[in-house]
Each structure stands twice: as structure tokens, then as C-alpha cells.
């Protein structure tokens, strides 16, 4: 055929043959039986939705993953999964980044060089022989029954460590305390709305119930932000406050000496609790005694607290701890050490000293890190979105982890790796099917979890609380996981790195947070360097003044340092301690942490309208919205907890690139919906600000080329192709929601300014994209579109059936993500729609309505509590 000159027909034949070959190579689908979500919305063949589970603090939240042409492109909460109820968080939203992360390990490495997986198996066999004597496995919290069984089956010694043990120590055995929220909540250093494995469920319940919330806490938390009365106190004073409260109920001796919690707060809380329907929440950072006292008080108050067994019952048993492993290493008993995920060298720095004593070390990890550098073998781990498995939720509900795509690299899941070590060559699907034999598979896979599999409450007695701790006079350093990168495992995720932390609005790094008076007494302002000294260890960090940080305390967030940006504070932390006595002094130098919001004061402006506003008289006459469709949004400021899920969801949905630390420092981040923080009086308020889609839009009037104009259904549209980039629209937007592509942030043609080297986390190519949304060029303005692609999709669907778009058919990405359902979107022209009803609420107000911009996005105010 190819002997003669290439004729037209031959060319076409070859072309089609080649195209077929290419098509066959595309869209790798995972093997095994994939079942779409049971009530998946009807969609073309291209788009499908699958139920799966993703871990947060090691435990499952049910998620639905949207897959287009075989690629996962969006993750949202699974409405029927009790741990998410349809809501999601920044971690779930950003999980796709980790899947496509360019920094992922691509193949097994032996001493840094690519090597065959089989060679590793042979080497392990060489060390161990036939048995498992001398094999040790180090994991973090394992909430997957299949993985637990596989580890046990291997006959190895199993050790556990975790920088954040998400378990309650109130009872004599590790437990999870679970209770439905009550109308009156009293939280002691507890953060049910933020750092809690079940925070999605709790946020939803909180939003539905709007309980009266009273908080004592030692660092600002999202929960504190929603409190009616919130007091910041050093950790020991929070506990003493709990004792003082318990004493009023005759449950414990009153703490000796002066209690710093205000008597008025105690009076109020006591009165509230005595009215009934109260619940105490004690954070897991409190001492076990304090947690026990809170549980005892809850039982006295008849609060419906269930004590559930911890998902991993051996979690804290001393002979399975990291110490034990260190002892074994010291004694030379460890022939082969397998570290499953985690990064113990970084999180427990002293562990590095022991690691070299093992005969052979294997690290199973998605990305190379401090631990993998010290291990002989680094084995690439599969992402949850490309592997089969199961995972229990906080309440024990057994959820299935379903892959959406074939492993992108030569990676194995933990389950597969353990099977290989046993000589089992089956793939993850076969393994999990085998483990799940006897359980309803199809149904569970479709739904995402096994119905009725949650743990049963136990009747465990709590510890003896004893007396209140004595006050601590010296300055206390408080350790907390970072709200973005948690314990550092997520530090490679640019979406999370660039997501402003709820209170500080810091991105791409950490700082030591301290209260105003403490900062003044040390003579520091934001960015001045402070040296912290705990025992023999010291660490220098920039200061960050946080109005809500209790005086006499400093707070640092771990999860940073080295390539992650920011500063590593793990060396200061002894084991799992949440606080330490600290010596602090100012040192020369300044490094200003990067923050996306510099001012938190309302400056006397009625931005939040906490008081009822005067009725605005419109001299210009009402412009009637379009008759058929008038899209609008209402954001409930009372329901908003400030978690940023909307920000990241929008980023994923709308192909918004991250800009990197250097650009973020210049104020050029591109988030289409930002969450503003305002301090006023005793309150902190969060205000999500997307484009307001003004009917009388100031941006539209000033664009010289008409690149932004109104659609028939009231959207303020941005025509990227027409934009010449005068930035006049952004100047004239009073809400400052317009974002500009100062550089080519997607890096095509790499004209964007390269980020500073230590923070080059490779976000340019790695960020996955939504095929429905245009990627914007350099020099072009962009902003929230009300997810116009979703509106169009709904319209196409409705047009096909010759009907109007139904209420609730269009769900914007921010709305879908919001765990507390603070965002309502819909058609204002339809008076029966949810959004129209929300807009007629008397709390409804237009932000900067006095400018007569007639925004389509309005807010429901968070009123001052009337006492």
C-alpha cells in the first residue's frame, strides 16, 4: 500500500487509522465494574457522576465525582452520605489537584533511581525469608477495614502515629463522641465547624438549627466565629472555665485561685444549660480529664452523646506506638520497615535518628518528602480517585472508595501493595470485592456507602476528671493544624495553599499569631521576626497580629517549612502536644507573611447591616427584571461559617489558576468569590463576595469596547475575547470582584512571572480544567459568571423538553459546595423560587445598595443577638 506515492485515499485511510489508534489510547478507564451514582442526573454519555469517599483527618466523607470523557473534573458532597449531606470542604474540592499533581512520584525508586516493583519484592523477601518476623509497618490512623485486615494478615508489627489524633480521650479507650447538635451549645476549644472529621454534617446541622453558641477557645476557630459569646483564653484557662462551669452543677470541685473566664459568661451559660437542650463540646486538644468532665456534664444534662468506638481501636495502645518502633529500631529488631503514607521524619523530627537502623525501609507515598529521602525504596501511592478501597466515616459508616480513572503513574494503592508483599497479584478491585464478600456490593457502590454499617454506641465509663489544672503563668505556645494544608500532607496542593486562611487570610505560608497587647509588649508588628524557644529547640517565624488570639498565648500552625513555604514548627512540638511553655524574643529582620486582606475594620460603614437599615428610596424607578428568567443569589451571612469551600469550589469549576506566592503578595489572586472578614465589637463576620451582577452595573458603563454587558436573563457578562484590558471596569466596581490576568497565569507560553524557587510547587500544568469553561488569556479581565455554563446546560435540557428551567435546577459551584447552605441561587422572576423567597426575608439587604447598583446578589444580615 505504501509503495507508490501517497495518494489522497491512502492518506485518508492512514489518517483515520491513526485517529482510531489515538482514540483508543485516550481516556484510560479503570478496570473492574464501575457503577454510576444511583440517582445520577440525566446527562450525555460524556458526563457521569460516581459516588466515592475521600478522607479528611483519616475518615470518610462521601463525595460525588463528576467525570467527563473518563476524567474526573469536579467533586461535590454526596447528599445521601451522612458525613457530608451534600456539602463539601476545601479539601474535597481541591483533591483533584493532588490527583493530577505534577510532583507525584511516577515509578518506584530504589535509592532515588527508577527500579522495578518486582525487585523491591525480591529484596524484601531477601530480608525476611518466608515469614514476617522483623517486618514492621508504620501508618497513620487507618479507617479502612480492608486495609486494616490486609495489614493484620501480613503478620507484621503495626505501629501508628498521627500529628492529629482525631479521637476523644474522655473514656478509658479511644472513642469518638457524636451527638446531634442541640439548641444550646457550649464549646471548649472545640471546632465542630472547622477541624472536625464530621464538620460537614455538623455545619449542615448547625445551619438548620442555628443554635445559641457559647465558646471558650484558645485560638480563633470557625466555631468561635459563629458564637453568641466567645472568649479567648489560654488553654489552661479554657479548662479551668470548664471546671468552673461544672462546679456550678456540682459535678466537680471549683478550680482553685482566680478563674479568668468572665462570671457573666458562666452565668449566662449556666442559665442556658439549665433551660435544657444543652450540649457541651470539648475539643480533642483538651486534657483527657477535661474531656471526661465535659462528657460527665453532658450526661448530667441528658445530652444525647453517643460514645462510639474509635475506628482504629489500637490507635493509642503503647506497644503499637512510634516509641515502640523507635525502641525496636534501636534494638536492631527491624529488618524491613514499611511506612504507609505519612511523613514521620517531618512530623516527628527525632524519628529520623532511628530510621537508618532498619535493614530495609520502604515508603509508600504519593509525593517525595523528607521521609522518602531517607528510605531505601519509595513506592508511588495511588490517589483515592484512582484506587479501590473502603473507608469508615466518623460514625463508623462503611463507605466505598471508587476509582474514577486508571492510575496515572506506576502506582499502587496501600491495599495492593500489602497484597503484593503477601504474594497476591490481584488488583485492587479483586481485593476489595474479596474483602466485601457477603456485603451488598452493587447497591453500596452506587450509593457510595453500606447502609446501616455505622458503629453502635457503647457504654464506656469516662475517666475520672479530678481537680482543675493549676493556672500557668508563662506564655504558652499553641500548636494547631493549618486550615489549608492541615498537617503538611496537602502542602503540595496549590489550591489549598492559595486559599486564604479563614481568620488571618494568610496564603502560602504561616506565621506566629499573637494578640494585640502581646504584640505590643514584644514590640512587634506584622512581619517582625520572633524567635520561639521550646526546651532546646528554637524556631524563628514572622509575627502576625490576630485580634482574636488570647493575650499571653502564641499560636503556630504546623504543616509548613522547606519546599512547602512558611516555617516548620514540628521541631518545637513534643510528640502530640498541643501546647508548650515558650520563650519568645524579637530578632532582627522582617518577612511579611502574604495575606489577601489587610483591613478587617468596618470603618463605620453599613457593610454588614447588622442593624435594620433605613429603607432606600430609589429615585430612578424600579427596573423590572426579565419576565422569564432573572438570575439572582442570596447569601445568608448568619449561615456562612467562613470555611472557604465556595472559593475553592469556584476555582475548580471555573478554571481559575493559582497565581503563586509572589503574585499573591502583590494582591493579584484570582478567586472569583472571596470571603471577607470583618471585626466589629466582639464579633467576627464573614462575607462571601462574588460578582453582584448589578442590574445597574458600574463596570458595564465604563468599558470602552463593550466587553462587559448584560444578558437577557440579567447576568453581567464578561466577553473575554473582546476585552482589551483597560481595567477600568475593575476600578469602577465598588465590590472589587473583578480579577485581572496580569500575567499568563496558566503558563501557556510561560510569560507569567516565575514564582520564587522554594515555593515552585508546579501548579502551572498540574491544575485540572473544566472542559465547559474557557481558559482566560493574559491581559483579560474575569469574574464570577454565576456559573453561566451550568445555566446554559440547564437551559439546553429544559429547551429540549420544551419547558422552563425548574427552581433548583441550576446550582452554582459555590452553592453546591457550601456545607451550611448559606447560598441560594435561582430565578428571581419566579416568585415561588427559593431565591425569591429568601430575597423577601426582612434580613435581606444589598451590599452598598446606596450606590443604586441594584445587585442581583443580596445578603441576609446576621443580626446582633438580642439578649
Amino acid at each position, binding site marked *: 500500500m505504501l509503495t507508490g506515492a501517497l495518494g489522497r485515499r491512502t492518506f485518508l485511510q492512514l489518517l483515520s487509522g491513526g485517529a482510531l489508534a489515538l482514540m483508543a489510547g485516550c481516556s484510560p478507564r479503570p478496570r473492574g465494574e464501575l457503577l454510576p451514582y444511583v440517582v445520577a442526573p440525566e446527562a450525555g454519555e460524556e458526563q457521569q457522576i460516581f459516588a466515592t469517599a475521600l478522607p479528611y483527618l483519616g475518615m470518610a466523607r462521601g463525595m460525588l465525582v463528576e467525570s467527563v470523557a473518563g476524567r474526573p473534573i469536579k467533586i461535590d458532597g454526596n447528599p445521601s452520605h451522612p458525613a457530608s449531606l451534600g456539602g463539601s470542604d476545601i479539601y474535597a474540592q481541591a483533591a483533584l489537584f493532588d490527583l493530577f499533581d505534577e510532583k507525584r512520584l511516577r515509578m518506584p525508586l530504589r535509592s532515588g533511581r527508577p527500579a522495578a516493583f518486582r525487585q523491591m519484592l525480591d529484596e524484601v523477601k531477601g530480608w525476611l525469608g518466608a515469614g514476617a518476623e522483623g517486618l514492621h509497618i508504620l501508618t497513620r490512623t487507618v479507617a479502612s477495614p480492608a486495609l486494616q485486615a490486609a495489614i493484620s494478615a501480613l503478620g507484621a508489627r503495626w505501629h501508628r502515629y498521627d500529628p492529629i489524633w482525631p479521637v476523644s480521650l474522655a473514656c478509658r479507650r479511644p472513642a469518638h463522641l457524636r451527638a446531634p447538635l442541640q439548641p444550646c451549645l457550649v464549646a471548649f476549644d472545640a471546632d465542630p465547624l472547622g477541624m472536625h472529621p464530621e464538620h460537614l454534617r455538623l455545619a449542615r446541622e448547625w445551619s438548620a438549627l442555628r443554635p445559641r453558641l457559647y465558646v471558650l477557645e484558645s485560638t480563633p476557630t470557625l466555631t468561635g466565629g459563629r458564637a453568641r459569646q466567645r472568649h479567648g483564653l489560654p488553654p489552661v484557662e479554657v479548662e479551668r472555665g470548664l471546671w468552673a462551669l461544672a462546679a456550678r452543677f456540682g459535678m466537680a470541685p471549683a478550680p482553685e485561685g482566680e478563674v479568668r473566664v468572665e462570671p457573666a459568661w458562666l452565668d449566662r451559660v449556666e442559665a442556658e444549660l439549665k433551660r435544657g437542650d444543652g450540649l457541651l463540646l470539648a475539643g480533642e486538644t483538651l486534657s483527657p480529664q477535661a474531656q471526661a468532665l465535659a462528657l460527665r456534664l453532658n450526661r448530667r444534662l441528658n445530652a444525647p452523646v453517643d460514645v462510639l468506638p474509635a475506628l482504629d481501636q489500637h490507635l493509642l495502645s503503647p506497644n503499637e506506638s512510634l516509641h515502640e518502633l523507635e525502641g525496636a529500631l534501636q534494638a536492631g529488631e527491624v529488618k524491613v520497615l514499611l511506612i504507609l503514607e505519612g511523613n514521620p521524619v517531618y512530623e516527628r523530627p527525632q524519628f529520623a535518628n532511628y530510621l537508618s537502623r532498619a535493614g530495609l525501609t520502604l515508603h509508600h507515598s504519593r509525593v517525595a518528602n523528607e521521609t522518602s529521602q531517607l528510605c531505601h525504596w519509595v513506592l508511588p501511592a495511588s490517589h483515592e480517585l484512582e484506587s479501590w478501597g473502603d473507608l469508615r466515616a466518623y460514625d463508623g459508616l462503611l463507605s466505598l472508595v471508587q476509582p474514577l480513572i486508571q492510575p496515572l503513574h506506576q502506582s499502587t494503592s496501600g491495599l495492593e501493595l500489602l497484597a503484593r508483599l503477601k504474594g497476591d497479584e490481584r488488583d485492587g478491585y479483586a481485593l476489595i470485592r474479596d474483602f466485601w464478600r457477603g456485603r451488598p456490593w452493587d447497591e453500596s457502590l452506587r450509593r457510595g456507602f453500606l447502609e446501616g454499617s455505622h458503629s453502635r454506641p457503647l457504654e464506656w465509663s469516662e475517666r475520672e476528671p479530678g481537680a482543675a489544672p493549676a493556672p500557668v503563668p508563662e506564655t504558652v505556645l499553641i500548636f494547631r493544624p493549618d486550615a489549608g494544608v492541615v498537617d503538611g500532607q496537602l502542602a503540595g496542593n496549590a489550591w489549598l495553599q492559595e486559599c486564604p486562611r479563614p481568620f488571618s487570610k494568610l496564603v502560602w505560608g504561616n506565621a506566629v499569631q499573637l494578640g494585640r497587647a502581646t504584640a505590643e509588649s514584644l514590640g512587634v508588628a506584622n512581619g517582625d521576626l520572633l524567635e520561639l524557644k521550646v526546651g532546646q529547640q528554637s524556631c524563628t517565624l514572622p509575627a502576625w497580629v490576630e485580634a482574636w488570639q488570647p493575650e499571653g498565648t502564641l499560636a503556630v500552625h504546623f504543616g509548613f517549612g522547606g519546599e512547602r513555604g512558611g516555617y516548620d514548627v514540628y521541631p518545637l512540638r513534643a510528640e502530640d502536644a498541643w501546647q508548650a511553655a515558650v520563650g519568645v524574643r524579637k530578632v532582627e529582620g522582617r518577612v511579611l507573611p502574604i495575606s489577601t*486582606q*489587610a*483591613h*478587617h*475594620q*468596618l*470603618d*463605620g*460603614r453599613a*457593610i454588614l447591616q447588622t442593624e435594620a437599615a433605613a429603607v432606600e428610596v430609589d429615585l430612578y424607578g424600579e427596573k423590572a427584571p426579565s419576565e422569564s428568567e432573572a438570575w439572582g443569589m442570596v447569601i445568608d451571612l448568619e449561615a456562612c461559617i467562613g470555611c472557604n469551600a465556595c472559593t475553592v469550589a469556584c476555582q475548580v469549576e471555573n478554571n481559575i489558576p493559582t497565581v503563586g506566592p509572589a*503574585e499573591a503578595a*502583590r*494582591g*493579584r489572586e484570582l478567586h472569583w468569590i*472571596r470571603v*471577607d*472578614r*470583618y471585626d466589629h465589637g466582639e464579633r467576627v463576620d464573614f*462575607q462571601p*463576595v462574588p460578582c453582584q451582577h448589578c442590574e445597574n452595573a*458600574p463596570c458595564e*458603563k*465604563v*468599558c*470602552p*469596547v*463593550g466587553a462587559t454587558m448584560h444578558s437577557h436573563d440579567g447576568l453581567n457578562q464578561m466577553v473575554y475575547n*473582546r*476585552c*482589551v*484590558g*483597560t*481595567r*477600568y471596569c*475593575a*476600578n*469602577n466596581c*465598588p*465590590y*472589587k470582584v*473583578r*480579577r*485581572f*490576568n*496580569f*500575567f*499568563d497565569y496558566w503558563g501557556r507560553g510561560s*510569560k*507569567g*512571572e516565575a514564582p520564587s524557587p522554594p515555593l515552585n510547587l508546579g501548579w502551572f500544568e498540574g491544575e485540572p480544567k473544566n472542559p465547559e469553561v474557557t481558559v482566560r*488569556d*493574559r*491581559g*483579560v*479581565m474575569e469574574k464570577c459568571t454565576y456559573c453561566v455554563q451550568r445555566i446554559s446546560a440547564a437551559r439546553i435540557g429544559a429547551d429540549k423538553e420544551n419547558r422552563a428551567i425548574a427552581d433548583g435546577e441550576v446550582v452554582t459551584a459555590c452553592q453546591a459546595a457550601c456545607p451550611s447552605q448559606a447560598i441560594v441561587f435561582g430565578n428571581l422572576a419566579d416568585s415561588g423560587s427559593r431565591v425569591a423567597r429568601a430575597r423577601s426575608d426582612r434580613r435581606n439587604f444589598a451590599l*452598598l445598595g*446606596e*450606590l443604586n447598583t441594584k445587585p442581583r446578589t443580596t445578603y441576609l444580615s446576621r443580626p446582633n443577638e438580642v439578649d
Partner: protein
Amino acid sequence: MKWIEGRHTPETVSARIAGVILQPPHQRLWWQLLGLSALGVLWLVVSIGVLLYRGIGVWGVNRPVGWGLAIVNFVWWIGIGHAGTLISAILLLARQEWRTSINRFAEAMTLFAVCCAGLFPLLHLGRPWYFYWLAPYPNRMLLWPNWRSPLIWDFFAVSTYLTVSLLFWYLGLVPDLAVMRDRATSLWQRRIYGFFALGWRGSSRHWSVHQRAYLLLACLATPLVVSVHSIVSLDFAAALVPGWHSTIFPPFFVAGAIFSGFAMVVTLVIPLRYLFSLQDFITERHLDAMAKMLLLTSILVSYGYLCEGFCAWYSGLRPEISTALDRFQGVYAPIYWVLLLGNSLAPLCFFWPAARRNIRVLLVVSVLINIGMWTERFIIVVQSLSHEFLPAAWRLYTPTIWDWGLYAGTLALFSFLMLLFVRFLPVLSISELSKQAVEESHE
């Protein structure tokens, strides 16, 4: 009143002014300055290249401060470009004879300043290669610019102003080019000057047509003096931004433009008359008259500042008041104090005649005014944008090296063009000064 010192006839006037070109003094200094300016122009080219290659991001602009030094410089240069037409057109119509000595020079300055100004709005676009989308041209997509946008008005105002200024300047030059042609010694000089002199022979008919055309252009140019900066001010006044949204802006900007234009004329004319020994034509009385203009416009501008403050207070709107207060107390306050010193305080010394005739004082104050007017534009553009309606969106702007680079580059371009101008074209109007010399000799 005599505006020319010494005894001058048309012959001596021609000889003195053409001599600046034909027997140029200070050749070495001129070459040195030209070389320096050429280096600056090179830097301008580099700044533009970097900007186009890498994007607007090389500047310090951010959100909320979407406009930075580029727009500050645009408004500053346009303001400087005001004096020329004002002197040529309005003072001509008002029969202010002292304008004769400075009009040519001021017109050239105007032209070059507008050229420098014109660079900025083009370059500050995110996608400058699409600048022509601002023009209404027929296209397949039937797209039209947005006539509601002040930037479109601006586009037309500035381009009209540039065209009319160029015509006016050239029309005035024609008789002088003929003088140069006649006095030139080399063949090529003769040919080039001759080409541009358009066959001027100085006949009565030529003069009568020329005078009519000149007067007509003056009448055309007069409204432009008011319109250009009024429209530039509307870029700001038509927006919502506190600190911009103000009805006083058009007259306030026009006064400021004349103020800065005259200041620049004084700054340049003092070394010029000294270097080229033109003290006979640009006398102390001229300087005195210009100082009086400076004093007047300074007071007008100061009235504008007072009005801004009053309006902010009287509005009772927190954002307006907050922005006004932030000018005195915020991070940019030192810049605001420089503004008040340069624009409102320093020119007050011109109440004293001695100060008006003291070259040093004049030079220092005019430079202060130039700086002051630049800071004024900085405050208006940057400070207002950095302190808007939502405190959560407040953020400062810091210029980068490329912001400054472009500014320095245009300064160099301006001086490069001015140096070429003084070397190759008559810096003062030979014909008009000759006429004045004759008239004064008859008095």
C-alpha cells in the same frame, strides 16, 4: 509696553534666532545631553519591550489599584501639554503680546508632551495590540465602541488635540522655515527647510492667508484647551470611586493642567534663554507674567483641593470622608503633603514681585510645581483606588522598576525631542518677533 529688550530690527531678530541653528553654541553640551537622552530612550524601548513580552504584571498594579503610574504619567504629561495651546491660541485671541516670545517653544513642548502622554494609555492596556478596538471602524461583527465610556471620549479628545496642536505648530513654523531656507548655508539644509517651507515667499497674499488660517486654527484650538483635560478628568469623575466621583473635576483638571504646563515652560525656558542668549526676547517681564499665571492657577487648584474636602464632608458619606481623611493620615500622606507644598504653598511667594523676577526662585518653584502636580495625579489615581468602599478590599500600590522605567523613559524621550527641536528648528517665532520688534520700534 515693550516686550523686547535692546534695539532689534527684523534682521537682527532673524540673525539671532536662526543663528542658534546655523552657528550652534554649546555643541559639546548638546551632544552630551543628546547622548544621555538617547540612552534614556533606549531604556524606554527596553521598558516597553519587557512590558509587552511579559505583561502588565511587571508593573505594581494590583487589585484594587488597577491603574498606577502609567495613568499618573498620562495625566501629568497631558497636563504639561496644555500650556502650548493655551499660550498659542487663547493668549493670541486675548492679544497678549508677551506670548510671542514663548509660543513656539511652548507649542513644541505641548506636542512632545502629548506624544509621551499618548504612549501610556496604549501601553497600559492588558492587550495593547488590540488598541484599535477603541476606534469606531466598520467590521464584520458590527461591533462598535461603547460610547458611554469616558475612555472613548478620551481617545477622541487626545487624538484631536494632538492633531490640532501639530497643525497649529506647523502653520506657525512655515514662515520661519522659509527664513531658515533663505539663511541656510548648505545645500541640504536649504532643500530640507525649503521642502517644509511649502514654497513660502512672504508675499502679502501669503501673509494674509496665513494670518486668517492661523486665527481660525486658534479659534478651533481654544475649546480644545478646555475639552481635553475636562474629558481626561471625566475618566475619573464619571466613575464611582470615592475621590474621583466629583463634579468639580473638569475645571479643576483644566486649571491644574495650565498650572503644570506653565510650570514646565518656566522650567525649560530659564536654561534655554541662558544657553542661547535669548534674554533679549525672553525677558524678566515674560518670566514675571508667567509667574503671575502660576500664582493664579495655583490658587484655582488650591480652591479645588478645598472643594474636594468640603464636598467629602458635606456629602456625609463615610467612604468619601474616609478617603479624604486618608489623604492626610494614610500611608500616602507624605505624598499628599508634598502636593500641598508644591502646588498650594510654594507658588504663594509669587505675590512678591521680587520672587517673580528672581530666576532661582522661579526655577525652584516651577520644579516644585512639576513635582507637586505629579503627586497630585498620584494621589487622585492611586490613593483613591487603594481606599474604596469595602475596607476588606483596601490595598496599597507600590510602583516597580518597570513603572518607573517607563516614566523615566518618557522623560528621556521628551528631552530627546526637545534637544532635536532646539537644534533644528527656530525655538522662537522669527516672524512674530520681527513684527513685534518693528511695532515696538515705532512706539
